[in-house]
């Protein structure tokens, strides 16, 4: 079990995270927040790449920085930017990383075959990685994180660059893995995790916003999400009085999905809130700033 206790991280004068408390047991955790919220910062601390400015992180009661290689032995990590050697084949690179992870060559060779099969790269095992597509590289990265059969698996935006088919395959793989280990994945794509995560973690304003199941997080907007059809001309007015989540154009009319707290109108249809709605609602200021 990982316990993040009162952790803050500063880069020089800039505070990236402030007083974060978290607990992770076995299962799948989705770290969901928009760009720049501090996902990578939290993940790098969990992977011991950087240390908290304040607070401590414990694995089974031991400080992970003090555990040193004993922690890293149990860790599988995929960074947001997965670096590789251009002239290496996946097999060569994985053999190299297996050595750094202290895995014997014979054991590593078997494991590598099995993993490359799992990420559907069996037929390019010996091809140089400079000829790979972005999605293929990413899958080597996923395989690499699983080399040492880690108790703790931490993946920073693992689905970036994967096509829908590979995404689906990856979700199956994750569900499988999370049965007997601790898996944390970060993303800003809601659909990647909403169906598979045991718990969702959201960070806002450098602090923890939610750590809860998808159902409980969605419940915070119960009775506030509606859909209705309006004329195109009404859109501006509508936007002023409600929080617009999405809009769809059909036959000169707009179907809008929005949040309204207070009395509703008759022609509105109340719909069950989705995780995406909560995401758009909670981060509306941040997301607006981006557009």
């Amino acid at each position, binding site marked *: 079990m990982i316990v993040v206790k009162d952790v803050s991280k500063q*880069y020089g004068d800039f505070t990236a995270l402030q007083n974060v408390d978290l607990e992770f047991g076995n299962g799948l955790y989705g770290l969901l927040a928009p760009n720049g919220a501090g996902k990578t910062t939290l993940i790098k601390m969990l992977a011991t790449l950087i240390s908290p400015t304040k607070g401590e992180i414990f694995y089974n*009661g031991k400080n992970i920085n003090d555990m040193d290689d*004993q922690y890293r032995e149990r860790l599988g990590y995929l*960074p947001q930017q997965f670096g*590789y050697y251009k002239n290496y084949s996946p097999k060569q690179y994985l053999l*190299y990383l297996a050595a*750094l*992870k202290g895995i014997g060559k014979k054991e590593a060779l078997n494991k590598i075959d099995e993993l490359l099969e799992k990420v559907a790269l069996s037929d390019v095992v010996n091809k140089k990685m400079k000829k790979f597509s972005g999605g293929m590289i990413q899958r080597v990265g996923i395989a690499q994180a699983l080399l040492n059969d880690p108790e703790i698996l931490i993946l920073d935006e693992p689905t970036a660059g994967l096509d829908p088919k590979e995404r689906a395959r990856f979700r199956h793989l994750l569900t499988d893995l999370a049965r007997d280990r601790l898996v944390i994945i970060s993303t800003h794509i809601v659909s990647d995790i909403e169906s598979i995560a045991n718990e969702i973690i959201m960070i806002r304003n450098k602090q923890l916003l939610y750590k809860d199941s998808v159902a409980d997080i969605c419940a915070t907007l119960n009775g506030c999400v509606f859909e209705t059809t309006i004329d195109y001309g009404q859109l501006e007015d509508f936007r002023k009085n409600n929080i617009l989540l999405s809009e769809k154009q059909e036959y000169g009319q707009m179907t809008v999905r929005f949040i309204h707290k207070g009395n509703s109108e008759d022609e509105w249809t109340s719909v069950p809130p989705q995780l995406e709605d909560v995401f758009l609602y909670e981060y509306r200021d941040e997301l607006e700033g981006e557009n």
Partner: protein
Amino acid sequence: MNKERFKVPDLDEQTIRIQIDKIVSVGVKPKQSFPSYLKSMMQQVGLRHIFSDRLEITFITLLVTMMIGLMVLLPYYSEIHDMYGYIFLLSPILFLVLSIFTYVRKTQNHTYDVEMACKYNVYQIIAFRMLVFSVFSIVLNMIAVAILAIQYDEIQFMRAFLLSITALFLFSILLLFALMKRRTTVIVVSTVIGWTLGNLVLQSMNVNLYNDLLMKTPIVVNAVVLLVIVITYVWYLKKLLQFKQREGVFE
């Protein structure tokens, strides 16, 4: 006797559990000795992967060839009594260049994040390489000094050897120290320049004290100085093995 009970501060369950585990773990964790750590690293990672970089191997070969050439040619172009000085000056350079090269390549590489999360992380590989480089440089020094000593009767093998090795380790310590502080580049560059200039200036001015220091110090004193320096070196190397970066940015 005062039977008043001690007041137990309100600790939440989690804090207590962490504290207990912490105490237990500190007591239990077996700490591997430095040599046995190096041995298991050697066995598990293997030299092939510790020196996996083809560019690095090419670079090393080139440097070594240059150094040997220099050592052999140098006597033809300089006074014999300057030789000690040159050895003192040059011997650390090889080690330094190799170490810096490996350090920069490893820490600036885009694979840094991946390798940092492995059991044997970037700093441990660097420390191991530096150790190998220093052994390597010692052997090379020995050969060079032996060549000089055979060619020139005035040069005592033992003295020249001790001198060059002392220089080597002195420099290694400076380098390790610089690597573990931040602002690495500035410190390393100024150390190299300072070292080279300082030695050259002292030599060209033919300062008596400097020459005496190099030529006349009893060998026993040399040996003791060397011993102290080697111990310090190993101590710093062990620190590099456990080195953890405090900040996210590297300068």
